[in-house]
């Protein structure tokens, strides 16, 4: 039977881990539990609930930094930043609806643990690029910290990077400091109509290589969208420049204004355009942008019913496949071939996720190295055991 323990302070958090270590009990570490269906299913006797360690510790808009506790809901953070016209530039997606759950759930630290990022990943980076520092508890029951609250810091190893994207398997975070940025005044989107995948990705790559500072490039069936953000005169000038650049292709275009753009890019961020059937399995493929169309074509040869769209200028493919026992993982990963990149199974029934590698298999040398890194933080494997399998 699963039991839950809910510490209310840093010291209680540390004691909880120390206790688990002493008892040899593994911990299912969670904030709001919004991403429990992502990753390998856990079989832990004990839930470590971080929702009691919550709240903004410090927010200094002119320092571009916010410090908060691990259980702080994302919605609380985003609402506070919006009051000061700031944002989390990595544009964390709300995967709730995609994962069959309510929207608006999850914590900022949860997004960091998954190293999530939205369309602005291209120009602003992912959660990893914005985590300035943290404090937490390692698998020895020791409270430790790394990084800080300042923008530039190379003192000691950058443990923030390896914690981001570790899905809670290395340490339990207590407090994080995250970089924030001014929200753009204006947003505009240039939509190119009727391009096929290859032409769409070519157009996106050309736009990204232009001086027009494109901050989002997504290709949906028949619609290739390029986002521009900034102060009004700049957005206007760049929109014109981008139109001129794209005019060579002789393609039909339309424009979205600020409000329409925001809605559109929120949908892209939250994977809404995939329109995956409720029982479809969903993959996220990260690849070199120009390789995207060929990878998808290889998958479609084998699975013609595949649905997909591209973000990150073609470097991110969101893919929905009809249900199957093995989520077609060999087909999907085989399609990547030698091009480099990785495919993550984002949504599938528990039995499928238990049977199939959810995260992309790595070389033997990397597997061994990652295991040693895991052991250096969590020698007894207390935290989310096997989640990243």
């Amino acid at each position: 039977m699963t039991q839950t323990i809910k510490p209310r302070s840093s010291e209680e958090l540390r004691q909880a881990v120390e206790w688990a270590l002493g008892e040899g009990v593994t911990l299912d570490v969670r904030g709001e539990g919004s991403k429990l269906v992502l990753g390998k299913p856990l079989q832990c006797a004990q839930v470590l609930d971080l929702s009691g360690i919550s709240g903004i510790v410090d927010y200094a808009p002119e320092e571009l930094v916010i410090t908060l506790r691990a259980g702080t809901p994302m919605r609380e953070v985003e609402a506070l930043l919006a009051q000061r016209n700031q944002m989390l530039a990595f544009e964390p997606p709300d995967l709730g609806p995609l994962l069959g759950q309510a929207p608006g759930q999850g914590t900022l630290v949860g997004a960091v643990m998954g190293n999530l990022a939205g369309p602005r990943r291209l120009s602003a980076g992912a959660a990893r690029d914005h985590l300035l520092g943290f404090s937490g508890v390692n698998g020895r029951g020791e409270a430790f910290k790394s990084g800080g609250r300042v923008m530039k810091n190379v003192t000691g190893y950058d443990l923030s990077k390896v914690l981001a994207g570790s899905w809670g398997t290395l340490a339990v975070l207590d407090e994080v400091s995250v970089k924030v940025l001014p929200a753009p005044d204006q947003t505009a989107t240039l939509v190119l109509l009727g391009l096929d995948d290859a032409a769409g990705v070519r157009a996106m790559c050309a736009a990204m290589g232009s001086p027009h500072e494109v901050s989002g490039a997504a290709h949906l069936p028949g619609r290739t969208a390029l986002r521009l953000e900034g102060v009004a005169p700049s957005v206007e000038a760049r929109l014109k420049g981008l139109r001129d650049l794209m005019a060579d292709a002789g393609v039909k275009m339309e424009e979205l204004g600020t409000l329409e753009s925001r809605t559109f890019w929120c949908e892209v961020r939250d994977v809404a355009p995939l329109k995956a059937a409720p029982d479809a399995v969903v993959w996220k493929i990260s690849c070199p942008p120009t390789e995207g169309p060929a990878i998808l074509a290889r998958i479609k040869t084998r699975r013609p019913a595949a649905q997909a769209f591209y973000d990150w200028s073609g470097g991110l493919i969101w893919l929905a496949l009809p249900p199957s026992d093995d989520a077609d993982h060999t087909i999907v990963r085989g399609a990547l071939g030698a091009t480099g990149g990785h495919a993550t199974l984002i949504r599938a029934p528990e039995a499928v996720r238990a049977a199939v590698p959810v995260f992309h298999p790595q070389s033997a040398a990397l597997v061994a190295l990652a295991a040693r890194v895991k052991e250096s933080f969590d020698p007894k494997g207390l935290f989310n055991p096997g989640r990243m399998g």
Partner: protein
Amino acid sequence: MEMPPLDPAILARRSEIVAALRAIVQGEGVIDDLDGMRPYECDALSAYRQMPLVVVLPETVDQVAAILRYCQDNKVKVVPRGAGTSLSGGSMPVGDAILLAMGKFNRVLEIDYANRCARVQPGVTNLGVTKAVEHEGFYYAPDPSSQIACSIGGNVAENSGGVHCLKYGLTTNNLLGIEMVLMNGEVVRLGGKHLDAGGYDLLGLMTGSEGLLGVVTEVTVRLLRKPSTARAVLLGFPTEAGAADCVAAVIASGIIPGGMEMMDKEATKCAEAYVGAGYPLDAEGLLIVELDGPPVEVDYLVERVAEIARGRGATTIRVSHDEQERVLFWAGRKAAFPAVGQISPDYMCLDGSVPRGKLVEVLAEMRVLSKQYGLRVVNVFHAGDGNLHPLILFDANDPAELKRCEELGADILRLCVRVGGVLTGEHGVGIEKRDLMGVQFTEIDLDQQMRVKCAFDPDHLLNPGKVFPKLRRCAELGRLVVTQNNLPFPDIPRF
């Protein structure tokens, strides 16, 4: 500065080690004569010098792997070196260690404009990457002052910054992948032309690890399209507080300049005497704010910055009108270090980072410390991201003054940590700040970092004597004493 004692057993085996290296790297790639090794005896922290055991310059990844495997098997220490421009002694040789110089890895392997990246060998210079792509309008964003000389491999090791970090990030934000060799000789690739890692972000961990975890043999960097325009604004303030206020106000207004630099009166005076950039000599605080992007945006933002500066009491506001003038505005700032070198036999450059809001307080306290120690301190810094570069003026020929300088430097860095900052923003810990790590980190913090080190290098053979004030053996660090303790915290809610 004390380095670990030399191992007499290794010194006694020197000729055997040299022979083993010659079997791996033929010809002139192994240097063991004193004259040949002399150029390698220090890096850019030139106050400290040490001859290596032997220098080896491999040319292939296989050779690097064979060298490291040999070192692992025979418990020989290795110090990796790029261009040797570290300001913290990151590549300073160790007397009983092989110096592994990566200078022959100097080729640009592939440029992929469509995917906006370049694959280069680690010995390619930072500026060399930009030079290879600028004819197509692209560049590599991080621009440390040493960019003419410093290598990309060294940039990865140090997570190098530059004046444009606030907007474009440090090295870590501009890398897509690396190939590296582990101490056991295994070659692993992290990342590639795609974004993010499949497993743990070991690429992020490697970046800024100061050559203690692995030897980088290939780097994939992200390329950016050059902004269509850049203009600089020169702002002089009657007080340092006025200048610092202006920095905060610009950022609070939602503007992220391409660069935002500050110099104190002394630095301004030195720089002006050195290059004649037209800096106002009456300003207590001088700012150079660079705005880049499309011309219409730059014009708009220049006006807004000027307006903010006027509101903060700026006495000088000059906007560059052409590229020549912009370069001139920067010339003084970029030459600030050599300019200071003109007025003092030696200087020590510090690198603390503080929250921007603490700039004025830190500057004032630094003045007090400067008086106490009787050593002049000149300040040049990346104001936009709170990264200070105090320059302590001293005479290295006077050992007592060098010692006083080191002590003043340590006090300034302690001050940075006390106000919520850190010991180093971009130069690295190396040997220079190694013994101050305990000011910023607890023993538990440092033990955790050392355990990560053990995951890569279980015998502490790679770049020994750097970063950690005292090394603990991995076996000792790995020991875990578990005490079973039934419910030591009956009050914590559980259900």
